């Protein structure tokens, strides 16, 4: 690729942490929010102010430390040094094997740290306003802090085991927060579904971890040359064959991708993400838009050397090919479904799934920088969109159906402006918005992909659909007239200020990713980057930019044409529905993936559950009852023995003693002559004995 050829020689890496530098204190970044969560959990009485202060305070300190770390890495980059500082320590020792944990500070983790803590902090502040009427305010902030700490732990982890621990903790807090309003059955079911679906992916992930540990003897990523994704270990992995023509590296990569697919909602494990919208909107913004779902993408970026091992320069590996295809398919699949949804948050949820597909495809085709840039920009504008949606819901008195909204452009101007900025960034409106540059990076990589051209066309079609459904949504919500119940009102400043900040970044972040100044890519890949217009001279780039612009405007125009005029009343069918009712039905019913699961997997488990229940109740229960019955029988026997044999014999014995005593007592007749007779008899006997013995 021309861009890479243009780059200068890669920087010299440094791996030493110290003298005491920021990387020694990196562990504080995740630990502080977790401690805040722990302290909040210990309070018996709920204190709103206290819990919010703890959460926001701890995350602010984490943000500060993240900025210092980022600054340190940028300073290193500015001096031509590729910073990768690790701190490793041994956690367990069994026999000759060690289990090591540690954290790493390099450009990848630095940008993620800043993004997660910054967006997280904004959402925390936003939550103060959004959850102000909720009675479980304290519990909410406790869980939010826990999540923030866990996510930051995933980001800085240098060990696949530590990453997995943070991964699971993130999954747990996601479950807790989706099911935050647990009294609602829909919320509880959605939380369960999220946990179980991601669990399916996590099983494969764990298999991959174990296999990697078995093959390389370590789970650390970087360990001064001895890490599991460093060249020495990779060379060994490439020599091990696995099944179906894969090497061990490829197979492990696919297993790890399975975990990432679960967490990032790739097809077919995407079914939990739309249902996760049952949680409060700040949760949707933070977890299911910006950070947790991005963890899967981040994981692939982290183990990219493993995924890319064995690939020819310019070519690709099996693992990356699979990642690309799954990502591209998911992008189109989810975008199609988003067209026919009517819940404001569900549209955004499917949009998130679609954009995650873009990120995966970008990773697979273009490398770490391409995918990560879209992740960063997406985090900002998707969080913005979700928070805007939350503001809309809040202002419309908890109404979530877009068909019952409308005309909010006038009632909620701040929300309208920020939401529009986010929407245009998502659509990839040319030049001004960050989404354009990040998406273009992916399309650029797709255009040059050596394996096939189909993903490129799929992603372009996805961009068209994205513009179309977002226009539909914005038209329904903000334009035409109000179709709902009570009139809407603007949200308080504590909610709109974060929106404004995010909107600013949705525009500004584009600046670091343009071909004129490809700072982000250079930073991540460890090159120098200069500002110059040469980047635009790459063959085909201008054509591509023009083509994507056309696609965006086509989508916007089509959407405006169909929905920009009078929006239909809530009871009437949608415009498209009238046109192609069958296809609309399929899309509205989410292409029946959930129903498929229900018929196959869930029915299978229901059957097994019934069998197990029967087994448990009839067989094991019968056994237990049988044993109890035997014991009862035994007890009866013992009672019989005790009453009749023991007691009986004892009583009989005593009676006999009495009788014997009575008999013997007759000797005491009270008559003198009897006594005399006995005396005389005794004397006779004695005398006889004496005489007899003296005869001898």
């Amino acid at each position, binding site marked *: 690729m021309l861009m890479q050829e243009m780059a200068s020689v890669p920087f010299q890496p440094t791996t030493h942490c110290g003298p005491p530098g920021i990387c020694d204190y990196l562990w504080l970044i995740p630990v502080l929010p977790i401690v805040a969560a722990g302290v909040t959990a210990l309070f018996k009485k709920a204190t709103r102010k206290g819990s919010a202060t703890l959460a926001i305070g701890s995350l602010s300190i984490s943000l500060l430390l993240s900025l210092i770390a980022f600054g340190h890495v940028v300073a290193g980059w500015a001096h031509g040094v590729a910073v990768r500082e690790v701190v490793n320590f041994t956690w367990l020792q069994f026999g000759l094997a060690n289990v090591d944990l540690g954290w790493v500070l390099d450009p990848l983790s630095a940008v993620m740290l800043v993004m997660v803590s910054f967006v997280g902090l904004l959402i925390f502040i936003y939550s103060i306003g959004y959850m102000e009427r909720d009675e479980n305010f304290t519990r909410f902030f406790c869980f939010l802090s826990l999540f923030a700490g866990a996510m930051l732990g995933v980001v800085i982890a240098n060990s696949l085991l530590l990453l997995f621990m943070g991964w699971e903790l993130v999954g747990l807090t996601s479950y807790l927060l989706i099911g935050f309003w647990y009294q609602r059955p829909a919320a509880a079911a959605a939380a369960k579904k999220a946990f179980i679906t991601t669990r399916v992916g996590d099983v494969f992930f764990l298999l991959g971890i174990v296999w990697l540990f078995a093959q390389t003897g370590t789970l650390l990523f970087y360990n001064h040359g001895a890490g599991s994704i460093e060249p020495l270990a990779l060379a060994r992995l490439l020599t091990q064959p696995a099944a179906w023509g894969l090497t061990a590296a490829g197979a492990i990569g696919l297993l790890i991708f399975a975990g990432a697919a679960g967490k990032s909602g790739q097809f077919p494990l995407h079914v939990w993400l739309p249902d996760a919208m049952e949680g409060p909107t700040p949760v949707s913004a933070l977890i299911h838009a910006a950070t947790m779902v991005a963890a899967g993408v981040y994981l692939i970026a982290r183990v990219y050397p493993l995924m890319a091992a064995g690939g020819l320069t310019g070519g690709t590996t099996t693992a990356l090919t699979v990642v690309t295809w799954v990502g591209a398919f998911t992008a189109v699949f989810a975008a199609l479904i988003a067209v026919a949804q009517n819940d404001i948050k569900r549209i955004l949820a499917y949009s998130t799934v679609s954009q995650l597909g873009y990120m995966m495809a970008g990773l697979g085709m273009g490398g770490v920088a391409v995918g990560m840039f879209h992740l960063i920009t997406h985090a900002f504008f998707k969080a913005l969109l979700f928070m805007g949606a939350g503001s809309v819901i809040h202002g419309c008195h908890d109404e979530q159906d877009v068909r019952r909204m409308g005309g909010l452009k006038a009632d909620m101007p701040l929300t309208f402006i920020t939401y529009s900025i986010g929407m245009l960034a998502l659509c990839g409106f040319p030049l001004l918005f960050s989404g354009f540059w990040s998406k273009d990076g992916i399309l650029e990589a797709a255009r040059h992909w050596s394996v096939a051209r189909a993903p490129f066309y799929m992603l372009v079609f996805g961009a068209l659909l994205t513009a179309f459904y977002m226009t539909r949504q914005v038209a329904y919500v903000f334009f035409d007239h109000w179709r709902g119940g009570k009139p809407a009102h603007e949200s308080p400043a504590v909610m709109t200020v974060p929106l404004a900040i995010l909107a600013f970044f949705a525009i500004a972040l584009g600046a670091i990713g343009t071909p004129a100044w490809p700072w982000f890519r250079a930073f991540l890949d460890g090159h120098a980057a200069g500002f110059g217009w040469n980047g635009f001279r790459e063959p085909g780039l201008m054509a591509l930019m023009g083509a994507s612009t056309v696609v965006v405007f086509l989508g916007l125009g089509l959407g405006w044409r169909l929905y920009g005029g009078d929006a239909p009343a809530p009871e009437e069918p949608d415009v498209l529905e009238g046109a192609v009712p069958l296809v609309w039905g399929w899309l509205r019913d989410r292409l029946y993936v959930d129903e498929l699961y229900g018929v196959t997997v869930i029915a299978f488990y229901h059957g097994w559950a019934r069998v197990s229940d029967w087994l448990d109740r009839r067989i094991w229960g019968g056994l237990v009852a049988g044993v109890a019955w035997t014991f009862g029988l035994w007890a009866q026997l013992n009672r019989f023995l005790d009453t009749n044999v023991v007691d009986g014999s004892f009583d009989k014995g005593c009676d006999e003693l009495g009788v014997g005593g009575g008999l013997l007592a007759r000797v005491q007749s009270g008559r003198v002559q009897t006594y005399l007779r006995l005396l005389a008899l005794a*004397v006779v006997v004695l005398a006889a004995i004496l005489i007899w013995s003296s*005869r001898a």
Partner: protein
Amino acid sequence: MNFVFYVLAALTVVGSLAAVLLKNTVHCALALTVAFAGLALLFLDLDAQFAGFAQILVYIGAVAILVVFAILLTKGSETPKDGVFSKTWLAGLFVAAAVFAVLGWAVLQTAPMLSKGATVPTVTVQDIGIALIGRYVLPLEIVAVLLTAALIGAVIVAMHDKEGAK
């Protein structure tokens, strides 16, 4: 074994038999007296003159009279309606027979060893008197106390109660 011994022995045995077999209690007492007399004569035959006369004086003169008095004071002269012998008289007879068997057997077993006893011990009354005061003074005094106690005791026991217990 001379003729006198047999006569006296027969007298004693008959008298004692009569003493335990007769129905009338007074007749028993009188038969007892006869038995005492026979025994006294046997003592005399054994050259124990003092013992013989003491026997006559004490037993016939005091004990027998005492027995008669007791019989008369307890309406013993009336014949009881149930019979004079106990319901289980056979057991008593058996025991007595056993005792006699043992005693007889003992005597007969050792009969060859018994001495003929030709020499007669010469004991005069003076000797007895000196012995009583000399060697046997302690038993004498004790027997005196015993007799006094017995006398007082018998009187108290047999005395009529005056107004309730005494």
